[in-house]
């Protein structure tokens, strides 16, 4: 786990992208980030916008009013009804995909490493979004990174993939997230809501407030809840004093025979609580164990959870 501090050494990663191989990126181009709601964008794109505009997809009729483009009058309707109706089409615009990566120290844990996993997932998701002509912005949720470069401003176009990858590679998990505040701040400061993917272990109080704030701001939130195998199945016996790697807080536990059982029950309860919480607010919740290969995650799991298509 000591090497998890520098997870992206050149020897480990392919030269071009740093994060992914070429063939993998080709595969990624076949999938896209699903946006459940139509949202207004800035530029012409491939996303259905809440606006009406010029696409091939019919949206609605509305009565003609002065000033409308008479090229869009539905003459067939006029023939039947002898009134002018304007045909409205779905506008297709771009969207800003928000990727939030938890860079708190607790993420730098586990085998496979949660942070590595989160970064690679964020890279893949970012590449997918760039390829889908969406804007991509990445924010590292960590106290020390919010100010100094922990923010990847919205970029558009596949040519920005390399910049995105290098930004991700520059991240380290050594901060304190204060997840609730960070999310609330992000919700308040984001100029334009869009699909938001939160990659975090959520191991902090305040996630509920943060997620509620995001949902209230109109983000289409997907929570990728990343846990490492040893968090799901801890191998602990005896009377222990557990130290938090992030906050250094201590918890004393007594090694009772059903300790692990109770822990797992608590974890399951928590995940169920998260699932209900997200479901109630129209968010997607995907519990992810880092032992799942990234490919399976992207091509199977996230599709199943309705985050990718």
């Amino acid at each position, binding site marked *: 786990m000591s090497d998890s501090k520098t997870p992206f050494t050149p020897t480990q990663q392919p030269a071009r992208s740093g994060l992914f191989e070429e063939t993998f990126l080709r595969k990624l181009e076949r999938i896209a980030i699903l946006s459940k709601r139509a949202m207004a964008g800035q530029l012409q794109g491939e996303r259905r916008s809440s606006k009406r505009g010029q696409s091939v997809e019919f949206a609605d009729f509305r009565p003609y009013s002065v000033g409308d483009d008479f090229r869009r009058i539905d003459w067939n309707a006029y023939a039947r009804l002898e009134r002018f109706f304007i045909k409205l089409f779905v506008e297709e615009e771009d969207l800003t995909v928000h990727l939030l990566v938890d860079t708190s120290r*607790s*993420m730098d*844990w*586990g085998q496979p490493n*949660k942070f590595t996993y989160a970064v690679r997932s964020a890279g893949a998701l970012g590449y997918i979004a760039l390829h889908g002509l969406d804007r991509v912005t990445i924010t590292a949720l960590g106290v020390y990174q919010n100010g100094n470069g922990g923010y990847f401003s919205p970029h558009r176009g596949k040519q920005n993939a390399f910049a995105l990858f290098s930004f991700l590679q520059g991240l380290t998990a050594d901060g304190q997230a204060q997840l609730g505040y960070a999310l609330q701040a992000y919700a308040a400061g984001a100029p334009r809501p869009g699909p938001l993917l939160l990659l975090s*272990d959520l*191991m*902090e*109080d305040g996630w509920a407030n943060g997620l509620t704030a995001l949902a209230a701001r109109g983000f289409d939130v997907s929570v990728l809840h990343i846990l*490492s195998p040893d*968090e799901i199945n*801890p191998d*602990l*016996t*005896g*009377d*222990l*004093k*557990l*130290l*938090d*790697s*992030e*906050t250094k*807080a*201590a*918890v*004393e*536990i007594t*090694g*009772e*025979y*059903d*300790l692990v059982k*109770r*822990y797992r029950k*608590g*974890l399951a309860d*928590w995940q169920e609580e998260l699932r209900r919480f997200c479901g109630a607010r129209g968010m997607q919740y995907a519990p992810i164990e880092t032992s799942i290969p990234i490919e399976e995650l992207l091509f199977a799991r996230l599709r199943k959870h309705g985050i990718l298509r």
Partner: protein
Amino acid sequence: MSFLAPSAFILAVLLPIIVAMYLLKLRRSEQVVSSVYLWRRMVRDVEANAPWQRLRRNPLLLLQLLFLSLMILALAQPFTWTAGASGQSVIFILDTSASMASVDAVPTRLEAAKDQARQLVNGLADDARVTVIAASDQAQVLVSSSQDRRQIFQVLDSLQTSMGGSDLSSALGLASAIAARQPDTEIIILSDGRVNLPERLGIQGRIRYFPIGTSEDNQAISLLSLESSAGGEKITAFAQITNYSQQDAQRRLELYADGFLFNAFDLEIPAKSQRAVVADDIPLDTIMVSAVLAGQDTLPLDDQAWALTAQREPAPVTLVTEGNRFLETGLKLLPGFTVTLMKPEEFEANFANGTSESVTSAAQGDDNASQIYIFDAYVPVSPGLPTGSLLFIAPPRSTEVFTVTGLIEQPIPRLVDPDDPLISNININQVNILDAIQITEPEWARRTLEGEVGGNVYPLLVSGKIDDRRVAILAFDIRRSDLPLQVAFPLLLANLADWLSPGRSGGIPSQMLPGAAVTLSLPPDIVTATVTRPDQSKTNLSLSAGRGVFADTTQLGVYRVNWGSAGEAHFAVNLFSPQESDIAPAQNLPIIDGLQTIDDQLPMQARREWWRPLGFTALAFLLVEWLVYQRANLARLLGRMPKRLSL
């Protein structure tokens, strides 16, 4: 509840120490986890910061405190008072006499006594020493100062009634000797009180008496005997039935001859009295007569009796005489003897071969051991004497076994030992003797009669054993005295003949009391005999010169003795014991110094100690504590087991 060692409660200071150690518990080993978020969520409801509440949740502490408390309690040796024997050493005297077989207690008095003893043993202090003495005819120490309860119970289980009487004096003597060695000894007598007690006995220790039994309803055959008439033409049975109960009783007496019922009598027996029954119609060839009291009473053992008719095989007697009418007549009238008369010339002729064996074999054929030779005023001239018992009457000259030194005139006879069996019932004082041979008294012989002549005393009748044969010398010729004219003569002759023929089955008494030793007098050349008991078990008996002692007469009934090729005799063992048949239990034993019976005793108190169960419970808690401590490992072990099995 009181405590033997209350000082152990000082150890209770350890209890707060344990609690303190829990409060100042050692630091847990630290382990870094990614986040304690989940763990905190999990323990939030469990953990309370207050140390006392933490203690409350700790099963290990509770178990340890319990264990320590129990151990301290056990070390303090608590005890309670219970009913029972209290001594540090207890001697049980169990009466195993025949009367203890009475069935008024269930199932028998002895079993009731055993139960009582077991209860008392259970109530004893754990380290009390127990001695068990079975008292019947003799006292027998079965367990001596044992702390091994299992051994004691085994011995109690194996106790059985003997058929004998009960003699408490030896048992009490033994108990007293044991009690003298051990302090704080209690002697407990479990008996029905039908016992022999010494007049006075100084006993160490406390004595307590537990009377056993309630009923006195018993009738017994107290006598059964058979008499042959003088001519042997008739056998008469005489039975005596005794009612020991306080009520009149009606019983039926059945008489069996060799197993076949031949007569029965319905008897009404008044309380505390006897009825006699005479039956004279017994078949002549009967060997055994048994009597049975039909019906039930409390002691069934004495409702049966056996008697045997006289079984005498005639013993051969060879009388070598020139002619002696008195002797010839006297011998012929003796029952059980066949007399052969010989002139000295005939004897010499038969003796011609020069060996005594040939003579005897010619004279008798076989079974020469019981041969009796009577030499009347004659001594065999050839060297050596015939095999068998010898009686010399007025031997004219010396032989190899005695020396004749002269003649004495008019000795005045007198008895040497009035109890000598040879002269029992004989009044010799009126016998006048003209003259007698003077013999020197041989070393092997014992003087029975002696004659005084002018202040000197000479032997007149000596008897003794040379090797295994019996030899008697009567120093005077009976024809030269007035002995034949007196009553003493046939008696003396009969006594002499009986003494000289020890091998006859008449040497076995026909009736015995249980437990008594039977002296078997069989022919001298018989080496072994087989005794068959009433239950058909057999014992081989080694005999010395035809004599042996059989003491295992604990069963009631008819015993059979077999020897040689065809020798057979019987004897009967009957419980003709008023002491045992009179089963009315005595509520008090006759005075013994320091005797307590349970009626007038001090409250019976025995100390019952509790440290053992407490200690065991404490150990159980210790085990549980260990299991709880290791529960995580155990759970893992148990979880791994099925996987291994499935592999």
